[in-house]
């Protein structure tokens, strides 16, 4: 059984992040994406497949071409997952601020 695609694993790869960065700017075909990289088309195609499987990319047929769009909603989920570390410090610093305001005269 194939392991379920993990969205965090998907963005852990620098090439896949580069693909997301490109496609975030404008929808692109697989060929246009591959042209931006030195890697083989097959390699890029595999990366696109992984990104699509975990819904970071969405496909849309336009005429004969298949375009890939960036799915910001999926990315937002990741951003939220990334928040705990920031939140830990934010909470601490908020507390610090509240405590120290008592000393303020």
């Amino acid at each position, binding site marked *: 059984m194939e392991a379920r695609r993990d969205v965090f694993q998907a*963005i*852990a790869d*620098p090439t896949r*992040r580069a693909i*997301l*960065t490109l496609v*975030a*700017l404008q929808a692109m075909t697989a060929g246009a994406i591959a042209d931006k990289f030195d890697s083989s088309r097959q390699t890029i195609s595999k990366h696109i497949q992984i990104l699509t499987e975990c819904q970071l990319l969405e496909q849309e047929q336009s005429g004969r071409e298949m375009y890939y769009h*960036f799915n*910001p*909603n999926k*990315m*937002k989920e*990741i*951003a939220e*997952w*990334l928040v*705990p*570390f*920031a*939140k*830990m*410090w*934010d909470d*601490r*610093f*908020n*507390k*610090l*601020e509240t*405590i*120290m*305001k008592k*000393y*303020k005269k």
Partner: protein
Amino acid sequence: MERKTKINAEDDKQELVITREFDLPLELLFKAYVDPEIVEQWMGTKVLKLENKKHGSYQFETTDPKGNKHRFNGTIHEFSPNEKITRTFEMENTPFGVQLEFLEFEKLTDDTSKLKMHTVFRSAAQRDQILQLPFAQGINLAHNRLQDIVSKLK
């Protein structure tokens, strides 16, 4: 909702920068780092030792929700009141090793100040591992373009 605390952890780098602006005069912000009783309140740790001087050291202890105690300690390398603290940080009885922290305190106005906390880890892998601890899950994404897009959704 925008957090006042900014974290920058660039990919494949062994460092992490946390910045925060406070609605506090510089002196009070600095005091929060050197007064043991105050440190205990905002860090949520017990302060076993805190020597605010060059060659001084500190040791803190936290108790997790299960009641387990965790200690962490470090040595102070630089101590300039209202300006900076350079120190090491190490979690005891963990394989994570020591990290180096540069804390810079800056006056913005009479009533506001800024803290920059620059942490250097032994390796990028170690940084990411520490960021992914249960109590400190992490970021390893610094593609501002993506983050800009994401932040507009909020």
